[in-house]
Structures are given as C-alpha cells and as structure tokens.
C-alpha cells in the first residue's frame, strides 16, 4: 500500500530557482526506495523539502493520503515522517540518552521509556554509550544514534540522506542491514545514497535523479546491470 506520494514536486532555496523540478515518487510500507544521482542533482534538497526544511513551490506531498504541505517541519514527525539529515544529525552537546529523550518527548509520557529502551535494544552500541556526549561517538555510532532518534516516534516513513557517508565498508553494510530490518518492520524507507552498489543491493526500487528530475527508475538490480546507467550516473563504481 502506498504510504508516501510525491506528485510534480518543485522545490528550491530561492523563489524562481527550482532545484527539484517536478518529481513523482511513491513509496509503500516495507519498501526501500533508493535515490541516486550525481552530486548536486538535488537529492538532499528533495529530502529536505519532504521534511519541511526547504520550501515547496509546486506539487504535492501526501502521507497516507493526507497532505504534508501545510504541516510545519516540527509537526511532520507527529504525522509519521522521520528524517535523518546528511550532516549535523545528532545533538553533539547532549548525551546519547538525552538525544533519545529529546526525540521521545512527543510521545505520551508512559510510552517514552519503553521506546527509548526499544531503540537501545535495537542499537546495542548506543546502550553501552548512553551517558557519553554524542559528539564523542564514532562515525558508525553517530549514524546509529541519528537513525534511532528519527525512529523513536515510530514513523510510517523514514527518509535518510546518505547515512553511510564516510563509513567503512563494514559499517556501511551494517547500516544498510539495519535499514532492511526497519523496512521489514513495515516502515517505508527513502534512502538517498552515494554508495550506489551497496545501496542497490538492499533496495527494492531505485530512482536516479539528474538535475532535479527523475532520469531512470527501476528495480535495484536492473539499474546496476544497465551499463549505460552505471557509467553515466553511478560514478562508474557499479560498472
């Protein structure tokens, strides 16, 4: 069942200068959709527009049939949209436990402790470091915390902007495996990635964004096997 739907989405930072130029996407629960594309294609802008951090000039965003356009950024998590930005995605001055507590504050009081506990159980590394300042975590732990922070309110849709950037291949595999686990739990996952090969391996579908438009769309493996696509848009890494 379709949970997230973008229709004709146009978004950008300045009026009259669209970066995302008419994108259609749909995403079902339990599905991982990977968003690929060259640097500057507008992937991060698309993700931020979805989260409400970049103004939308035209088009629609609906989650479970309800429009998100009039929902302010701080209320979108309550509507079921979680977002992990590419950089500065944890509160460095707060402890791991405080990062989770901040995000859990929108839950009913009775549910907070159990959701924090569920996140610590899902990410055992964080449990061991819960008193540590988040700024002192390793790169992999940071991404785990950022994901846990977005996941704590049980969103229907989880969007992530390059969660594997800067991680070792082993940690990339671990993050992607976690995302698969999250999708299996019924969450619709929109994954912006540069690690095309690794990401396509866990993707159900993939979309390649070029200059703010969808250039190719298909099953993950099919895109990997298309030499034209690989050479043009996947930086040759998948060739």
């Amino acid at each position, binding site marked *: 069942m379709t949970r997230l739907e973008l229709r004709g989405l146009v978004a950008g930072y300045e009026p009259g200068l669209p970066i995302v130029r008419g994108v259609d996407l749909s995403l079902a629960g339990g599905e991982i959709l990977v968003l690929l594309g060259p640097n500057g294609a507008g992937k991060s802008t698309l993700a931020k527009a979805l989260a409400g951090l970049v103004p939308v000039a035209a088009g629609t965003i609906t989650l479970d049939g309800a429009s998100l356009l009039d929902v302010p950024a701080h209320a979108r998590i309550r509507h079921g949209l979680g977002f992990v930005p590419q950089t500065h995605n944890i*509160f460095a001055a707060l402890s791991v436990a405080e990062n989770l507590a*901040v*995000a859990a504050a929108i839950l009913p009081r009775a549910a907070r402790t159990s959701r924090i506990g569920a996140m610590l159980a899902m990410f055992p590394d964080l449990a061991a470091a819960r008193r540590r300042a988040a700024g002192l975590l390793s790169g992999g732990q940071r991404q785990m915390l950022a994901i846990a922070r977005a996941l704590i309110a049980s969103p229907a849709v989880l969007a992530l902007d390059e969660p594997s950037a800067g991680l070792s291949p082993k940690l990339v595999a671990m993050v992607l495996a976690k995302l698969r686990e999250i999708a299996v739990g019924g969450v619709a996952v929109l994954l912006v990635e540069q690690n095309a090969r690794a990401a396509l391996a866990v993707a159900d579908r993939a979309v390649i964004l070029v200059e703010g438009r969808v250039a190719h769309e298909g099953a993950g493996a099919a895109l990997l096997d298309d030499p034209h696509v690989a050479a043009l848009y996947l930086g040759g890494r998948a060739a």
Partner: protein
Amino acid sequence: MIGQILIDGITSGAMIGLGAIGLTLTYGLLRFANFAHGEFATWGAYLAMLGAGAFGGAAPIGALTFGWPLVVALMVAMALTALLALALDAALFRRLRRHGNAIVLVIASFGASLALRSAIEFAFGPEPYYYTTDIAMTLRLAPGLRATADQLVVLAAALVLMLAMHVLLTRTPLGRAMRAVSENPDLARLAGIDPARIVRATWAIGGALAAAAGVFLGVTVQLRPSMGFELLLPLFAAAILGGVGSVPGAMLGGLVIGIAEAAAVPLAGAQYRAAVAFVVLLAMLLVRPRGLFGGRE
C-alpha cells in the same frame, strides 16, 4: 582580607551570573547580543519596589532589612519582567528576525535599551531609591570577615536560582529542548520541537532571572535608572568568559568577574572597579575567544 574579597566578590558575582544566564541563552538561541538585557534587571528592581510598597509595610525578617512583602514582590517582578521580555520579542525582535540580520537586531536592542531606561527615569526620576531606610546589620562571620544578613540571603537566593536553572536545563524536557534548539534548530524541528515555543521560554526565563538580579542589586546596593545598563558590561564579560551559549559558563564567568571586581578595589582603588570587567573580557578574547566552556563559534 582575601576572605572578605571572596564574600563580596561572590555575592556580586552571583548576581552578575544570574543576569548573564539570560544573555547567553538568547545569544545561543537567536545569535544576537541583546543590549536591552540589562534593562530587565532595572525593570525588575523597580517593579519589585512598587510591589513591596503595594503589599504593605510588614516588619523586617530577622536581621534582614526587608520583610515578606519584598519576597512576594520579587516573584511578581520576575513574572512581570518575563512578560516584558516576551512582549519585547513579539513587538520588535521577532519581526526583525524574519527579515533583518544580526546587526539590525543588535541596533534594535540598543534602541529598546534606551527606551526602557528612559521610561524608568521618566516614571521615577534620576535619583536613587532604596527598598528600605533601615541600616543593614553587619554580621561578623570570622575575624576580619564581615557580611550583612542581606548579602548572605541574596547570595543564597542567587545560588538557589542558578541551581534551579541547572536542574531545568539538564533534567527536564523543556531544558533538553532548549539545549537542542540552541545547538541545532533544524534538527530540533525534525525531532518535533517547535522552536518558537523554546524561544518564548528562553525570553521568559532570561527576563525573570535578570529581574531577580536587579532586585538583589537593589537590596545590596541601590536602585537607579542606569543600574541595569551599568551591569551590561559585566554581564557580557561573564557570558563571553564562560563561552557564549553556556549556562554553567555564564554562572562561573559571573563569579570570576565579581571576584575580580572585588579584588580590584583594594589593589587598584575603587575608581577602577568598573574597568575590571572590561580588562577580563579583553584578556579572555585574546587568550581563549571561545570562553572557558565554549565549544563553538
């Protein structure tokens, strides 16, 4: 003599620290230096004077020069000054934040400072006031170590407020949300926090604490229309010394400035007291511009 310097310095330093908390919080959140912050202390002090008058002339408590009316008036003045800070933000700063840059905000705060100070001077005149005409009784704490009961109670009250502020920031959802927004407003929004709510809470808290500092200053020194404005340099020095944005830093910075000022009097003469905050500020900016606790620019 060292003990006496410490007592005097810590007492005035605690008041400076209280005032600096609001300054550092609004800077951390809104990224602008509010030059009107000192006026919250002035308004708090004068509002408490009106309140204490209205609540009647009860007898002083113990060895203090003031009675319960001033204690109640302190709380009322803190609440009213919180409202004043909220009103100032709603009427002025919030509009300018939408369009202007940091310089516009700073200049607007200069203007607001002047207006708030003039209003007090217009209403009460330039002459100093005292909450009471009683002479503060001096207690002998140890040989060569004296303090008035007023001083000790003010010190205790300031420390309690600082402790409460620390507990608020570290133990409550509101405090955690304030720290989150201060570090990264966009990420805070993604976590479901409405930054506008946090900005309001920060103005209210900063205004209330500055009002308390003003009342304490009124109890231990006197009330004058320029009292808050003259407090501004020590407040900035404390905030910068502690690292702008850091509440524990502002509290510690206040104590350092207070003690340095108290030490300057016997060493250099009372006329140099006011220059101390400036010297400490300058030294800090040269040696460690981020301040003692500052993590970011």
